[in-house]
C-alpha cells in the first residue's frame, strides 16, 4: 500500500492506495507518528478512496491511530471507503467509532 501525507493548515490527509494489510505495519506507524506529532495538527483524515482491501490487522492499525489521536487531542476520521472495505468498516462499526471522536 502507498501512503501519502498532505498537510493543509491544522489538518492532514492520509491518502491510502492499494491493499491495507499486516504488511503495512511499519510504514503505517511511521506515517501516523509523523502526522499526529506535527505542531498545530488537530485533525487527521484517513482517505480510503483508493483502498481495495483491508484485513483485520488494518483495523488494528486504525485503532492504534485512534488511541494516539485521543492522547494528543487530535481528531481522526475515516472517509470515502468503498466496496468490501466499506462493508468491513461498517460491519465492525469502525465508521461509527471514528465518527464519535
Amino acid at each position, binding site marked *: 500500500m502507498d501512503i501519502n501525507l498532505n498537510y493543509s493548515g491544522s489538518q492532514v490527509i492520509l491518502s491510502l492506495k492499494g491493499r491495507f494489510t499486516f504488511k503495512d505495519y511499519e510504514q503505517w506507524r511511521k506515517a501516523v507518528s509523523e502526522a499526529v506529532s506535527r505542531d498545530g495538527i488537530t485533525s487527521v483524515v484517513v482517505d480510503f478512496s483508493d483502498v481495495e482491501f483491508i484485513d*483485520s*490487522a488494518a483495523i*488494528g492499525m486504525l*485503532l492504534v491511530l485512534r*488511541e494516539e489521536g485521543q492522547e494528543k487531542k487530535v481528531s481522526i476520521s475515516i472517509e470515502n471507503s468503498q466496496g468490501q472495505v466499506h462493508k468491513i468498516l461498517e*460491519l*465492525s*462499526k469502525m465508521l461509527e*467509532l471514528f465518527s464519535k471522536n
Partner: protein
Amino acid sequence: MIDQDFQEIEKRIYKSKILVVDDSPLNRELIKSYLTSVGFHNIAFAENGRQALDIIFGDSPDFVILDIIMPEVDGFEVLEKVRKDRRFDNLPIFVQTALNQEERLKVFNCGATGLLMKPINQAELLSSLKAHLQTGVLIKDLKSYSQRVSKDLDLAKSMQIDLLPNAHTLDFIEKKMGILIHSEFVTSDELGGDLWGVEPISDSLLSVYVLDFSGHGIMAALNTFRLSSFLKQVLQTTKSPSACLEKINKYLFDNLPTGQFATMFLGIVDLEEGKISYASASAPPPFIVNHETLEVLSGNGEGFPLGIVENGGYEDREMAFNTGSRLFLYSDGMSESCDHKGNMFDDEGIQNFLESNISEKRFFESVMRDFRVRKGNAGTEDDLTVVSLKRNA
C-alpha cells in the same frame, strides 16, 4: 541462542575433535605442536588411510587434516569413501599437498574442502581451521535450536487442538440433542488465532461459538489460550448471548493491548422453541440452511469487535432453527479467500456454495470440496474455521 557471544563460540571451537592423517611421524608431531600451542587438545592421529576411515566413521571428528600419498589406502580413497556417506557432508577435510595443478583439481573433485600447502604453515592452518570450526558450531546451534522450537510448536499445536470440542462431546450432543456437528479447523502457521466450541447448557439448550483473534501465528494463539478458560465459565453462567459477549468484551478490553481484538459469533440453540438466539462481534454473518424448504438465510454479523470499546452494546438477534435446518458458521479465512482469478468470495460467495450444494447428501463435505476446488492460491493466508450444526430431531 542465535546471537550467541562470539567469545563463547571461540571457546567452544577449542574443544573440537581434530584428526591428523599423515604417514610421517615427524609431520604428525609438527602439526600436533601447531595445534596444542594455541589450545587445541582433542587431537587424534592416523598413520594411514585405513586408520583414518576407522576414526572418521567411529568418532566423527569435527575437522580432518589429510595427507594424500600414503601406503595402502591413500588420501583420495579416504575422500571418496567419506563423501559417499551423507552424514559427513559438512565435515571439513583439508588436504596437505605439494601436488601439481592437475592433482590439486582431482583433490577437489574428490570432495576436499580446502588445501594446505606443504610444508604446512601454522598461520594458514589455524585460520582455515578456526573459520570452519566456527561455522560448524553455529550450524550445530541452529540445528538444535530449530529442532527444539519445532518440537515446542508441535506440542503447542496439539494443546491448541485440545481446546476444541473432542469426539466424546460431539457424540454426546448428537445422541442427546439430535444435533450433528461437522467442523474444519486449519491454521495458516503452526498455531492459529481461531477458536470454536460448543457447550451444552441443558437438555434443550446448546451454546456454540466461533472466535477469531486479529492476526495469526503465535501471538494470536496465545490469546486463544488466554481466553478459553474464561470463556467456559462465562458460557455456563450467563443467560443471553449479548450479555456473554459484553463480559468477554470487557475482559479483552482490560487485557489486550490496543490494536489487538477478536471477532466472535455466539449463539444459543433452543430446541424447544425451535430457534437460535445469537449475538455477533463483527463475525461473518451466520447462515441457516433449510434442507427442507431449500432456502439459505443470512443472519447479521454486525457489532463491535471484542476488546476495542469498553461497552460493546451487543444486540440479541434470532433465527428459526427447526428439524432439518443447519447452522453454518465460518471465520473470515473462508470468505476472504480468493478464487483463481483473484476475486474474493465474500459472504455472498459462501452463500452460493451453500445454495448450490443444498441437496447434496454429504452437504458439509461437498461445500468444503467446492471451496477448495474454486479457491486459488492468491489472497491472504489466514486461519480457517468452519462449523456446521445440523438439527436432525
